[in-house]
């Protein structure tokens, strides 16, 4: 559905995105995660056809988006800062969208506006950040998009609205096979929402994986020994991180549950726990592996 191959983008001296490959399947919800300044927004804007890549190829269902009105009918982008035309109300924007988007669904627009209790004649600029965001969701979902690209979409929304909007989006995914590409820092939230994740760092994609596979492939081990074996005991495991607190060993290990368990059990541990990792932990350990670890600063 969305395919980016060897994409480069440079802003003057800053290499924002370099040699990046990304694939999003139809009907999937893809979470784009990454460190601050990793180039997530730049990438999203290139896929949405707002920026032009310097090198490489980006297609959405086989067509380019940049300066292609046909594709832009179907690929909708909600930026992190909602944008509306000057001095407009929700109704003004709706009539503008109706002229631009051929699939505009007026019935849906009306239902959503009432459902979210929005005043359609109030000036959008005078509304709060959260209300403006709701307005952009209402407008965007009413164009019946095939691909939705969201940059930090749930920022500034209260939990009730957040849940309602997610629910609406999920219905579109289930009913119409809507494809979603979402960037976020809220890993807790992404964990339940996405089925695919990609982690970006310094303009490249570190990896992209099926979420459930990711969670069942990396584990946190807590092992306590009566007598701690030599460190060489770890050689039989694919260890990402290792920590020892007294006689308790904590490590992050890649691999299959059965293989890891039987290996560890053969060393006769006193206590042995194997837990799946949370997305937050995966994020921290993976980025730690490329030199972006947590360094605690003590300020006086």
């Amino acid at each position: 559905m969305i395919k980016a191959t060897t994409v480069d983008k440079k802003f003057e001296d800053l290499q924002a995105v370099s040699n990046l490959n990304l694939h999003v399947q139809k009907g999937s919800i893809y979470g784009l995660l990454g460190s601050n300044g990793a180039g997530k927004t730049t990438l999203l804007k290139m896929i949405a056809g707002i920026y032009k890549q310097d090198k490489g190829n980006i297609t959405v269902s086989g067509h380019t988006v940049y300066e292609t009105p046909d594709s832009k009918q179907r690929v909708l982008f909600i930026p992190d800062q909602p944008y509306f035309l000057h001095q407009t109300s929700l109704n003004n924007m709706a009539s503008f969208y109706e002229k631009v988007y051929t699939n505009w669904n007026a019935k849906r627009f009306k239902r959503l506006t009432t459902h979210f209790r929005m005043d359609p004649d109030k000036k959008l600029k005078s509304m709060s950040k959260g209300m403006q965001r709701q307005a952009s969701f209402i407008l965007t979902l009413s164009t019946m998009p095939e691909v939705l690209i969201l940059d930090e979409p749930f920022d500034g929304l209260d939990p009730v609205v957040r849940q309602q909007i997610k629910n609406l989006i999920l219905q579109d995914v289930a009913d119409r096979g809507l494809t979603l590409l979402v960037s976020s820092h809220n890993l807790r939230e992404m964990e339940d929402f996405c089925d695919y994740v990609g982690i970006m760092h310094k303009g490249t994609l570190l990896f992209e994986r099926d979420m459930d596979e990711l969670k069942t492939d990396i584990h946190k081990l807590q092992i306590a020994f009566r007598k701690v074996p030599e460190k060489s005991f770890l050689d039989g495991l694919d260890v990402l991180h290792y920590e020892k607190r007294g006689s308790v060993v904590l490590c992050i290990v890649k691999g299959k549950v059965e293989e890891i368990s039987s290996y560890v059990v053969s060393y006769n541990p006193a206590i042995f726990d194997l837990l799946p990792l949370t997305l937050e932990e995966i994020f921290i350990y993976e980025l730690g592996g490329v030199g972006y670890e947590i360094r605690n600063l003590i300020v006086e």
Partner: protein
Amino acid sequence: MFTLDTRSRVPIYEQLIEQLKMMMMREVLMQDDKLPSVRSLAQELTINPNTIQKAYRELEREGFTYSIPGKGSFVAPFQIDANKERLEMLKEDMEKIVSEILFLGGSKDELIQLIEKVKVAEREDAE
């Protein structure tokens, strides 16, 4: 119908599979009953429809359900040995308890005596 623990480390599709299996074993879902549609479940629980699809695929692969194209998933004829799974679970619990008893100074003989006692009590009950 379902309670998902989004704080749990267990992936959501595994939680779904577990709960559906449990419902089948307890016969809340009977043979040939229709499982809720992906769409309605996605809406009800606000979770990714792909996650639900994955859980359903897995259940079908394990023989718990069968699907009719265009109609949905249904509970397969009863072939799960519910007792067997329960037995395995109890044995695992038992192992933990036994090792604790032994650690606290209990003896093997005491455990055997305990089993004999339970057995006798059960026989008397039956009579």
